[in-house]
């Protein structure tokens, strides 16, 4: 299994985009509602090499399943291309498309939804052979029996219905169906996450054996890092529709680079006790909506290492606190009327009287910030909060933005090429960032 073969990759994904549109019905058009794109997959480029298992990990809702379905052309892409064996999948038609449907298969997550409840498992596994008109009737039946035995079921169960099987057995049936046409490439979409832990290992081992036997290439989509570590050669980490890091599996697990990858690894429960004692910096905050992803680096709203502006001379913790403050000001997510004691500040007609402003600012600051700020930052924050005394939200936000805008929100770091790519300004080839701050471990 060569990781960086010099031959062309089996699958080359280039700038793949898949948006779903909301508010897009006739009525919405009539009322002039603009369609809102949900950016499920937003500019993904990846190579998958012959014979390897590429893992695709990320939290649920990050777009990884959509990506799997789009690259198999089960959904039409919004933009970008996917080359399979050198041919653009989205331009195929006729015989070429049939050939692609023959060579690329998928195994789904849910063993209960992936088999038609009204078909016997024999019919289910036979379907691909019928569609591609392979062999004679008896040859097909023999092949189905072989396949079922190959995945560990007995051929005399052919006439049974899916509900008579356990989850693990159904997943095996799904694998037999995917295997029927002897494909080259399989997308495994969370193939074990609906199964018991004991059954998971069996299914993973089966997939592993089949890979060797049939020389298969896998794209394994999973949120389960232990599964990925167990079977993958390389891993791509996805966040909000983008790939943030692609590395060989050992490197990724021993020295993750992207702050998101680190956070993901940290959130995996550990076996050894002394490691468990360690302070864990797990992922906090919600995943932002893919309808309105953050500017610049999409992880910046949750990143524990956001890069402060140059010569800011500020602790990461303080900086994060200020960023949260800024966010609230920008979203007007503050109730000014309740500042200070009941009725202390008259805010109805044109803001707080000038004389009261310092007291107002002090009260607001006390409520919003937990730590004492260094004098330099204290001054900036007070300036900004003073604007709020006149309910001048724009100006307050602007003041904070000029002072604290991070490179992370201005530029979206690019992934770069090669097998060791990380999309983070801390690691970019182009940006001359100092090594990562020691304050965070």
């Amino acid at each position, binding site marked *: 299994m060569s990781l960086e073969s010099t031959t062309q990759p089996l699958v080359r994904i280039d700038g793949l985009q898949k948006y779903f549109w909301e508010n897009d019905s006739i009525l919405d058009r009539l009322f002039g509602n603009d369609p809102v794109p949900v950016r499920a997959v937003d500019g993904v480029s990846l190579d998958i090499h012959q014979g390897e298992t590429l893992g695709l990990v990320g939290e649920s809702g990050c777009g990884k399943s959509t990506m799997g379905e789009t690259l198999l052309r089960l959904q039409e892409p919004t933009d970008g291309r996917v080359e399979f064996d050198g041919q653009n999948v989205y331009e195929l038609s006729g015989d070429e498309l049939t050939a692609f449907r023959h060579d690329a298969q998928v195994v789904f997550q849910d063993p209960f939804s992936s088999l038609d409840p009204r078909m016997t498992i024999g019919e289910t596994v036979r379907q691909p052979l019928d569609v591609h008109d392979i062999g004679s009737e008896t040859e097909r039946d023999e092949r189905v029996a072989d396949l079922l035995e190959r995945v560990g079921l007995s051929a005399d169960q052919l006439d049974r219905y899916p509900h008579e099987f356990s989850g693990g057995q159904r997943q095996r049936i*799904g694998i037999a169906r995917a295997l029927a046409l002897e494909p080259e490439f399989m997308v495994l979409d969370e193939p074990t996450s609906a199964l018991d832990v004991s059954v998971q290992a069996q299914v993973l081992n089966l997939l592993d054996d089949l890979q060797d036997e049939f020389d298969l290439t896998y794209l394994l989509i999973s949120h389960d890092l232990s599964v990925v570590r167990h079977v993958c050669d390389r891993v791509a980490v996805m966040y909000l529709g983008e790939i943030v890091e692609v590395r060989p599996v050992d490197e990724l697990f021993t020295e993750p680079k992207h702050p998101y990858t680190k956070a993901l690894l940290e959130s995996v429960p550990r076996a050894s006790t002394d490691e468990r004692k360690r302070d864990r910096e797990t992922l906090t905050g919600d995943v932002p909506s893919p309808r309105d992803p953050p500017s610049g680096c999409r992880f910046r709203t949750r990143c524990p290492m956001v890069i402060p502006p140059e010569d800011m001379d500020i602790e990461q913790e303080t900086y994060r606190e200020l960023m949260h403050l800024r966010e609230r000001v920008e979203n007007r997510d503050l109730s000014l009327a309740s500042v200070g004691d009941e009725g202390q500040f008259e805010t109805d007609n044109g803001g707080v009287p000038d004389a009261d402003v310092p007291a107002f600012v002090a009260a607001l600051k006390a409520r919003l910030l937990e730590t004492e700020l260094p004098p330099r930052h204290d001054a900036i924050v007070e300036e900004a909060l003073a604007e709020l005394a006149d309910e001048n939200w724009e100006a307050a936000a602007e003041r904070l933005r000029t002072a604290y805008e991070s490179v992370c929100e201005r530029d979206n770091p690019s992934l770069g090429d090669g097998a060791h790519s990380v999309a983070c300004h801390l690691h970019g080839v182009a940006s001359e960032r100092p090594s990562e701050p020691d304050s965070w471990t």
Partner: protein
Amino acid sequence: MISERVKSNLKQTFAESLLPKLGLVLLVSIVFMALFAPVLATHDPTRTGHYDEQGAPYPPLGHEYTAEIVQDGEIVEVPVEPTSEHILGTNNVGQDVYSRFLYGARISLLVGFLGTGIALLIGVPIGLIAGYYGGRVDDGLMRIADTMLAFPALVLALALLGVFGQSSIHVPDPLVIAGLADGMPESVPVPGTVIIVVALVTWVWFARVARGEALAIRNEEYVKAAKSFGTKDRTILRKHVLPNSLTPIIVLATIQVAAIILLEASLAYLGFSGTTLSWGYEIERGQGILRSRSWVSMVPGIGIVLTVISVNLLGDWLRDALDPNIEGEGR
């Protein structure tokens, strides 16, 4: 399409409960009466003039009534005795009520089942296609369906009958031609336009249910899997989407058979049936004399009620038995 498991479920639910048995017995007897109406009937249902010697219609057996008849220019009240010739009596024009009841069953069942069948054939494919493809196709089709559903079925049916007119096709009665039932009408009037009209006001129900099912099924992973190995949409619709949406469609069909029988009765009651051999028409005829000769309306009324109940009982049975989540031990 009907698997062993479904069969065993059907048997099991049938054995467990009394209601489906009752429904089956009722419906089978009604169908039997309808099929063999010419043989079972005692009189030609269209022949008028069966009165007693005073000129009054007969009451059913075991029932007496006083009729008001005109005698020597004066209205007098006379008692009327039943006769075994007309076991359910005769109506105001002297037709045999029992024979008309049998022939009425034919019309109700014909309209009910044929109308539902045609509605199924129109509604199910349209609904499945709309739900499966979604998007503009769906928007368009469902807008039409919603508009139609906004009108009461009876109003819509009357409007359509106004457009199409009423006509019935006279189909020769094989039993009479075979010589098994002498003296019965040689042909049966099949109310063609009524059947088409009830189908046209009913198909939207099937379309909506089929669409809802297709909408859910198209996102099932087995459909995605079928697409991934290149199954054509037409095959997916036929092999996955249709079989898996059948249960609610069948259940709806039983409800609609009953609803259409009622709709036909309403239309006939209002005089839009295309044939006088309809239960609804007969109810209307008895309406003015409900006090004195209630059996004229009552007999066909009971016919409608029993038919509707029997169909609904069987519908409940099917609904329970066809639910694929019920785990039966079928082999």
